[in-house]
């Protein structure tokens, strides 16, 4: 009787897959409490991370998820031996680079920022795939599509059909794995129910307070690699984003420490 092992068929079982995944470099995200939330203890090169912006539907505008993703991307681009490249796939044309450009660093250490503006959904999927497949790219940032609503507000625009997005995401996962680029996808919180191939899914909600150049964000882990649904017991952490430098900011205790400061201090201690 002939038995064919998994190796012979080219299919890896879970353990082998995990072992192969573990070989790849893990880079600190620059935010210690965020690292604690990620399964690998940092951002693993060649993986995808999803950021779900805002809590309620439609409340994603102004939540700070994109700024945080941009800060992580800059950190990833500057973490290697030589500065990497960040590719922003900007389907909406709303990306305003002066927010991120000061975070890239200066001189020889500066990372490179490239913006691509696809005009169609299929072009966008193709462009994300190409960018993730490229060896010199450190991070690929993808913004959700928004449109100005008739009432003058901002609503999350209709993404292409969820199914094609999911299929494409599998392709992106493989593409990222082949090159080591990290895909950072900012999506509205309403897409939480959709299946995902991201290594981590993190919901970002803003915390009120903070100074002009510091934003307080509350991060909740809402799903791992293959899971989709929300989990009430998942831990939540707080980070402070320094808007001027794109790094973790220090918490300033002004008067009595509020609930935010206590939580943040607890995260730092752990």
């Amino acid at each position, binding site marked *: 009787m002939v038995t064919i092992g998994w190796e012979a068929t080219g299919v890896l079982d879970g353990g082998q897959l995990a072992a192969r995944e573990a070989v790849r470099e893990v880079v600190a995200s620059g935010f210690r409490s965020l690292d604690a939330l990620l399964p690998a203890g940092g951002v693993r090169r060649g993986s995808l991370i999803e950021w779900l*912006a805002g809590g309620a539907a*439609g*409340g994603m*505008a*102004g*939540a*700070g*998820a*994109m*700024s945080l993703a941009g800060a992580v991307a800059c950190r990833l681009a500057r973490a290697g*031996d030589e500065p*990497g*490249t960040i*590719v922003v796939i900007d389907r909406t044309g*709303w*990306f*305003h*680079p*002066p*927010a991120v*450009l*000061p*975070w890239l660093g200066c*001189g*020889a250490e500066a990372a*490179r920022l*490239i*913006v*691509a*503006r696809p*005009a169609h959904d299929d*072009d966008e999927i*193709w*462009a994300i795939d190409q*960018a993730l497949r*490229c*060896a*010199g*790219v450190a991070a690929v940032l993808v913004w959700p599509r*928004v449109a*100005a*609503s008739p*009432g*003058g*507000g*901002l*609503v999350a625009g209709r993404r292409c059909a969820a199914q094609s997005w999911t299929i494409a995401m599998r392709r992106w996962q493989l593409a990222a794995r082949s090159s080591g680029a990290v895909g950072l996808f*900012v999506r509205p919180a309403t897409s939480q129910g959709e299946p995902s191939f991201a290594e981590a899914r993190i919901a970002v*909600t*803003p*915390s*009120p307070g*903070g100074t*002009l*150049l510091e*934003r*307080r964000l509350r991060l909740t882990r809402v799903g791992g690699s293959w899971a989709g649904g929300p989990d009430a017991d998942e831990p939540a952490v707080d980070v402070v984003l*320094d*808007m001027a*430098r794109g790094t973790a900011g220090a918490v300033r205790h002004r008067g009595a420490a509020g609930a935010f400061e206590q939580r943040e201090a607890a995260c730092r201690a752990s």
Partner: protein
Amino acid sequence: MSRILTIWLPRWPVQRRLVERPELRRVPVFVCRRERRGLMTVISWAWAEPPSDRGRDNRRPRIAPGMPLAEAMAVLAMTHGSRACHAAVVEHDDPAADRAALERLARWCRRFSPTVGLEQPSGDAAAECIQIDVTGTAGFFDGEWPLVRTAAWTLTARGLHARTAIADTPAASWAAAHYTDLVGARNAATEDRRSAWPRPRRQRFAVVPPGAQRLASGDEAVLAGLPAEALRLDAATLGLLREVGIDSIGGLLRLSAKSIATRFPPLVARRLAEFSGARAEPLAAPHGAELPQAAHAFDFPLAARDAIRPALDAVIERLVVACVVPLAARGDGVLALQVRLERTAGLLALAATPIVIDVGLFRASATVRHLVDLVRLRLDRVQISGEIAAVAVEVVAVGPVDCRQRSLFATERRDDGAAAVGGLLDRLAGRLGRAAVFEPRLVADAQPEHAWIATPPGSRPAVGSVAGGRERLPRDRVRREGAVASPQAAAGRRPIWMPPKPVPLEPLRAALVAVAPDGPPVRFRLGDDVHDVAQAHGPERIETAWWRGATVRRDYFIVETRSGARFWVFRRLRDGAWFLHGVFA
């Protein structure tokens, strides 16, 4: 003696834009260069189709190149009213694109003769002339008069205003082309009388008889009456000539060579020698005239309904190899490539236009696989119909490739990443369009929308040699780059998301008014959501200078709502209306 045809395209920077965007013909177009402190200087301007009742000469605005834009606008307002100024389109100077378009036109002009050159402008002026050696080829056009006429009117049919002239030397034909009115009036008698063409109101073409450029007087001396400016002298020398009473070429020709050499700067003697033919002036071929090209004709045309892509791909790959090999041998790579699929005229005459695929690269490449991939990407999106009779590949632009030694063992190379990103940029630009892929840079500008510019990626010399790149910049550019510190100082205060136009915020039952007279809003509505402002930072007042057109005066606030979301809103100081101008998303 040779015969040179000069095609002069007056105000070429504007003409080029009018051809590319015909809708600009109805409005005044200014092509401006940005000087220090944001001052705009008019390089060239035109109003192709002014309102009919006002296009007379006495009402034509007198705007000279080198005038500040504000002054030019004032002149335009005096002749045509302020409405014309509001309609005016101001374009930034782009000498590289002007030159590239002129080179394309020069290649097209090879229909008149194989030897085509571009004018070599003196100083920082831009080239506006194409010069063609038509010695012996005028016979194919039924003589020199029909040739100049054909050249002028074929270009008119392409939407270009051109003036053409033929003379013995490049300098003489340059002069004749710039003053066709004067030359045409003098040699109207010698013009071919069989011509059935009506004489246009303003003569656009002229033919100088052989040897006429050496004559200072007489019936044949058609060039002697031209002003001294036609010799391409600089303003200081022209002033010198005017002081001694010489204002025409004839006056200079009457002087002896010795007195010219002793009295005037050497440029005068040189220009005069070039003019008369005593000193040879070579035609400068357009860049890339010697670039490789390859073509393949099929024995039987390929019908599109058959699966022809594999065959086409194989042929294209072979042709690309044929083009790249001679380039790679001298260390060059392809920057731009054109693939033409020639179609046969089938039953439908429409099907006979060739399919042209232009591929542009951000950095030169000599890798056949990469080039073929780019062509394939474009070919995937082209609907091929009819029958393909031949395929031609032509290299349009080349650039040096950085060669590096191959290593024996496959190790991680440091510059592999940069090369891979270069390939990615070419692929993205090939499918999304060149304008859709860019590298943003900060510039010193108070108005937030204009605080950054999209530059084509790869224009930066290399990562890490920023200091080296700065040395090459002229001094005023360095000063401007030094001023970039101000947007850098605004770091953290700019939103990551900015709508293309400020979104008006609707007043919410008068609750949008600020508590303080100049303070932030307390509540505003965005779509269906009502936001209560918990805290606000500001105001940051931004005003633009009057010479930039419509004045912008705004008070910006960073407002944080009760839920912690941050927005960037401003109050227009003119009328107190509120707008959303960014989201700290």
